[in-house]
């Protein structure tokens, strides 16, 4: 395959691809892997795999409590990963980085601690605002919160072209609004949302701004410290495995002021200052929110992952995604019966492209593509309300990443043509 070259692609893309051993995989039938499911989970570079193996082989010990050399090494490696993550998102303060199990746990930490007594407690009559394009993990925790507190859940609708409908923002974000939680980049529509504008409006009424950055962190340069305070989220969640890190590790970043106001989430070891039978006092952040032995090797893997992305440069990663996304939008549009969900201008979207192919169900598309080595996702992508908004039961989604080549997009488009002929369409 000779790969067409596009402006904006990562320099030395073939060399970058060599960092990811799995991209050499040959699948059943002798076909090479074409991995277009990175919005689901990204592949891992050798440096991440090596960092985790090295830790387990040479430094493994529990952290922050073992009074021996291995314990010290492990603690240093774990805390260095926090520094690396802080640098990756431009956190104003490294202690504002809380390690969680995944983005879902990070969002649930926020939604749960807002239920409990404290300065930020959500009460009956209060309102929580989300959007119709959220992943289920940024819908269900807020449904639970509003059900438990007697508050009201409201949401931004979507325009026909896949953007947030901001026409009623003044009606939605009011003095009653206590929380506004939204995704930065949609995992289904790909839309990049104007979080600065919404945060500014939410902050004017004193609401807390929570941003789900699960799809943004892999592809957009994030510099929290550089954002004007009124436009900066108060809490931001993302997951490790979508930023070339391992599963089992996620991040909740929060401003110190807000994290200090929230009560503890899980109780246990390491989150305390002192414990007596009558009651306990709690450790300062970040440990206040990290009860129990954390996912140590996973955090170390995540540190290596964001380091790797930092070396490539997130501006370069973003430019690559934009170039591939534009190329993919063009290629997909050439397939008869194709409907793209979400914005069709690459500049307004991320690298996940969900689509419908008339006459073939997404499962069947994914199955035929899989027989040719092309891995995509089929289903509702944990965004059922967004699908319902567009009258779509399920869709097929291709999602690229920093290692995706134009030739792989060609393989997808060829595979879709083949799918149409297999199901005897026109």
């Amino acid at each position, binding site marked *: 395959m000779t790969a067409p070259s596009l402006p904006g692609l990562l320099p030395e893309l073939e060399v970058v691809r060599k960092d990811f051993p799995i991209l050499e995989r040959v699948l*059943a*039938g*002798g*076909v090479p892997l074409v991995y277009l499911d990175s919005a689901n989970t990204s592949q891992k570079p050798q440096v991440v795999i090596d960092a985790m193996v090295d830790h387990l082989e040479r430094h493994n010990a529990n952290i922050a409590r073992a009074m021996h050399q291995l314990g010290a090494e492990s603690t240093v490696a774990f805390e260095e990963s926090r520094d690396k993550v802080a640098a990756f998102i431009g956190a104003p303060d490294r202690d504002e980085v809380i390690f969680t199990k995944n983005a879902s746990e990070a969002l649930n930490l926020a939604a749960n601690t807002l239920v409990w007594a404290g300065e930020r407690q959500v009460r009956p009559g209060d309102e929580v605002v989300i959007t119709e394009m959220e992943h289920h993990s940024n819908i269900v925790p807020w449904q639970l919160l509003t059900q438990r507190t007697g508050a009201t859940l409201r949401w931004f609708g979507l325009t026909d072209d896949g953007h947030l409908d901001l026409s009623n923002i003044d009606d939605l974000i009011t003095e009653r609004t206590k929380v506004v939680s939204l995704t930065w980049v949609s995992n289904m529509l790909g839309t990049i949302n104007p979080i600065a504008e919404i945060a500014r409006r939410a902050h004017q009424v004193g609401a807390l701004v929570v941003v789900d950055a699960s799809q943004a962190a892999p592809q957009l340069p994030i510099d929290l410290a550089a954002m004007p305070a009124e436009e900066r989220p108060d809490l931001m969640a993302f997951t490790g495995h979508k930023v070339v890190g391992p599963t089992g590790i996620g991040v909740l970043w929060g401003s110190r002021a807000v994290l200090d106001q929230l009560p503890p989430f899980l109780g246990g070891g390491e989150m305390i200052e002192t414990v007596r039978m009558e009651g306990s006092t709690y450790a300062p952040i970040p440990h206040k929110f990290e009860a129990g032995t954390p996912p140590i090797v996973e955090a170390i893997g995540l540190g290596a992952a964001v380091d790797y992305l930092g070396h490539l440069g997130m501006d370069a990663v973003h430019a690559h995604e934009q170039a591939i996304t534009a190329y993919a939008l063009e290629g997909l549009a050439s397939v008869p019966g194709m409907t793209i969900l979400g914005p069709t201008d690459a500049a307004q979207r991320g690298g996940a492209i969900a689509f419908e192919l008339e006459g073939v*169900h*997404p*499962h*069947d598309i994914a*199955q*035929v593509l899989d*027989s*040719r080595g092309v891995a995509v996702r*089929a*289903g*509702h992508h944990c965004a*059922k309300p967004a*699908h319902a908004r567009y009258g779509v*039961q*399920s869709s097929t989604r291709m999602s690229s990443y920093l290692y995706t080549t134009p030739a792989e997009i060609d393989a997808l488009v060829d595979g879709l043509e083949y799918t149409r002929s*297999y*199901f005897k369409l026109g």
Partner: protein
Amino acid sequence: MMTAQNLDVLYQEIILDHYKNPHGKGLRDEFEAEVHHVNPTCGDEVTLRVHLDGGIVEDVSYDAHGCSISQASASVLYDLVVGKPVDEALAVHEEFLTLMQGKGEVEPDEDVLEDGIAFAGVAKFPARVKCALLSWMAWKDATLQSKGSTDD
């Protein structure tokens, strides 16, 4: 061409025929029980009604949204159970379930399963077994409810 052959194991002509021209599709008014089953991983869904009369499966009517496998399987279900005594239909259900859970190692009995034997290949694709079973599970659920209501 290896891969095309693999695909043909899954997508037998019979399956594609039922997909394009499903038998018994649509919701009809006579029924004792209606159920709604979904496959939470993909969002496929079926609303299915069962009408029993004198111990006979008089009608199975359904509205289904899903892939070719799930649609064809609902059509084959209709052909296999309508007109049969309930116990016999439940035995066919059992036979189909055994085939689908057999990891591709169960030899289907064409006398019992008729067009249903085309699903033998689906059993080799673990991710698709649920698609094939969606309407069958819904039918069993509705039939047992329907049986309960008519027994009373």
